């Protein structure tokens, strides 16, 4: 076209007509996409809160324990009638201490010491743990024999449940563990101020016990602590080292493909199989002791490794090659390039893997089953070689207990586990935040 165009024609011509680029639809899609994101995130968080709520609402009562404060007469008559404690060291250990507590309680309730039937019911109100409590007092200070001391004693688990309103008192007496008589006494004592709820320190520090009121997660906490320490100390360096080798050094061939697939596959191995492995390798072959947190730590390390390796490899892959070229071009060795530049950039991913891996390891029971850590352990472990349990194990075992009082304690133990989890991960989370950078 050679026709001359007027300036105005050009003016309109170049003012390109607004194209339809489907904005409305695309914005709807954008909003939808964003909404999906919000929905997904809220969904996850809501469920977290529902879960936490269901645990906390059931479990917070576990941090209180009903106790009875009584003046207890350490009667020479009962403890050491023949006055032989100088000569017979065993005597103070084996004396019939529960009688002391029972008598004290009976006295407080105004029950004659000859009413055998009632005394029986009275003694059921106190925990069997009073034996050890009173014994320890006497052994520590034999001088209190013959005196009267005010002692705060654990109430029996059933009474504790009744006092917290967890036993349905409307059913007939025969169908529950506490009798109407006992409930009456309980109310009487509560009014007098002798029976009250106290903060339950025992749940944190006591070892396992078949008596709910005296049971605690002390041993499990230590066991979990040892195991997590071992898992962290072993799996993080090993996992990162393995990932670095596989991602940065290993020749890309069938064999390394096989290793890669194999590691992915290890993540799919049911955790109990790691228990079988631990039993075969660490206990039967290497001769390490059963029920030891050392073995548990090793087993959980093996279980955690794939998680850390997969996360680390993904993070290493995501580091742009230009960073590697830059460092290599300056004469940094490959090792230096990786440790100085690539690894710090991959750190958030590595830490995520660690956080998730450790969280998984902390909550895992099944592999511990076969190496003997799902067990009743009353004594504190002093080293990782001693028998101990772990928090999830304690939860698992309490969840299977018949007594009502264990129900709230199970939830209480879960709360403790979650607190442990949070404390354990806080460091990693803060560290991860420091390493995160956009560029």
């Amino acid at each position: 076209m050679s026709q001359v165009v007027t300036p105005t024609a050009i003016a309109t011509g170049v003012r390109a007509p607004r194209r339809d680029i489907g904005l409305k639809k695309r914005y709807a899609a954008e909003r939808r996409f964003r909404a999906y994101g919000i929905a997904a995130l809220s969904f996850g968080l809501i469920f977290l809160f529902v879960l936490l709520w269901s645990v906390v609402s059931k479990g917070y009562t576990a941090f209180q324990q009903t106790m009875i404060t009584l003046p207890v007469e350490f009667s020479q008559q009962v403890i050491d009638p023949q006055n032989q404690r100088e000569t017979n060291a065993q005597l103070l250990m084996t004396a019939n201490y529960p009688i002391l507590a029972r008598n004290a309680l009976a006295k407080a309730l105004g029950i004659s010491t000859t009413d055998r039937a009632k005394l029986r019911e009275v003694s059921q109100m106190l925990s069997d743990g009073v034996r050890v409590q009173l014994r320890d007092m006497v052994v520590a200070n034999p001088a209190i024999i013959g005196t009267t001391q005010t002692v705060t004693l654990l109430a029996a688990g059933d009474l504790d449940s009744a006092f917290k309103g967890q036993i349905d008192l409307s059913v007939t007496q025969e169908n529950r563990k506490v009798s109407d008589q006992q409930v009456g006494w309980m109310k009487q004592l509560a009014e007098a101020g002798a029976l009250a709820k106290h903060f339950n320190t025992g749940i944190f520090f006591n070892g396992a016990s078949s008596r709910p009121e005296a049971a605690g997660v002390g041993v499990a906490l230590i066991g979990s602590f040892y195991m997590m320490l071992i898992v962290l100390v072993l799996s993080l360096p090993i996992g990162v080292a393995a990932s670095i080798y596989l991602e940065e050094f290993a020749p890309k061939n069938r064999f390394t493909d096989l290793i890669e697939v194999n590691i992915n596959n290890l993540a799919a191995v049911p955790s109990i199989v790691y228990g079988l492995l631990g039993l075969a390798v660490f206990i039967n072959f290497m001769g390490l002791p059963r029920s030891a947190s050392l073995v548990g730590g090793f087993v959980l390390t093996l279980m955690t490794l794939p998680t850390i390796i997969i996360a680390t490899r993904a993070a290493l892959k995501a580091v742009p090659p230009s960073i590697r070229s830059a460092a290599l071009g300056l004469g940094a060795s490959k090792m230096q390039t990786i440790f100085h530049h690539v690894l710090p950039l991959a750190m958030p991913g590595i830490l995520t893997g660690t956080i998730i891996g450790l969280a998984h390891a902390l909550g895992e029971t099944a592999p511990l089953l076969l190496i003997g850590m799902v067990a009743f352990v009353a004594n504190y472990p002093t080293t990782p070689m001693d028998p101990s349990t772990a928090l999830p194990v304690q939860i698992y075992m309490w969840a299977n207990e018949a007594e009502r009082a264990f129900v709230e304690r199970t939830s209480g133990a879960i709360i403790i586990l979650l607190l442990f989890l949070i404390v354990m991960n806080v460091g990693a989370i803060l560290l991860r935040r420091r390493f995160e950078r956009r560029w």
Partner: protein
Amino acid sequence: RDQIQIAGSSTVLPYAKIVAETFGETFPNFKTPVVESGGSSAGLKEFCKGVGEATIDIANSSRAIKSSEVEACKAAGVTEIQEIRIGYDGIVFATDSSNGEMKIEPKDIYKALAAEVVVDGKLVANPYKNWSEINPTLPKGPIAAYIPGSKHGTREVFEEKVLAEGCEQSGAAKVIKAAITDAKQAAAKCVAVRKDGAAVDIDGDYTETLARIAANKTGVGVFGLAFYENNMDKLKVATVDGVVPSTETISSGKYPVSRPLFFYVKKAHLGVIPGLKEYVEFFVSDAMVGPDSPLAEYGLVAAPDNQREQVRKDFAAGKTM
């Protein structure tokens, strides 16, 4: 090693725990034994690994050791095994406490749960949908029974003492025997459980059964007596053949569904592992397993006096299997 190591049945575990704890308190110079859970099978397997410090001392079991296991033990050097029978575990049927009184007979259970029942003299796939079709005292609503999974020792007892019995009572056994000549297979048929979802296997513990009943009020669950006694306010127990389950009725043999509980001791470890002998003696003493003992209070059905005495004698005499 200065600590006794025990592994095995989760049914025996609560009793073993109580004994272990009391043992630790009563004998302060011995450490409290470690009691592992993990099932009779796993416990016996560890038990039969061999003799020595690295192996466990006691295996708890909710069933008697099988001859093949004794063989395996022998092969590994565990030649001397002492069997200790600690008492009985009662198995009860219970439903949510909101239901009415329940009276059942084995044949009711059989009809409700068998894979095939006899209707008009013929074996047909179980047609029953509601409890009321079988027995009006049972909960009103669709049949749902929570029975121990096949991994549990209790299942065997349930099959033998309830299903097989019910099979007999209801007359199905005759029809089955008529149809199938092989006695073993006929017996198996008698105890086969329906698989349409009415009978639910529970591989977990009784707490799971309890939770399931709480979620489904018309369900009937199978529990251990001890567990039931701890949750009486939530559960309503069923009479079997008119007998209410209790320690008395079970130990007297009136209540039919129960089983013995055991533990096995490695004789070679006696006198080597500190406290082992004392532990066993403590366990079998009347203070622990007698009718008035803490274990009985928890729900263990004490063995008759003479049986307990026999157990103590056998142990003292070092009687092995």
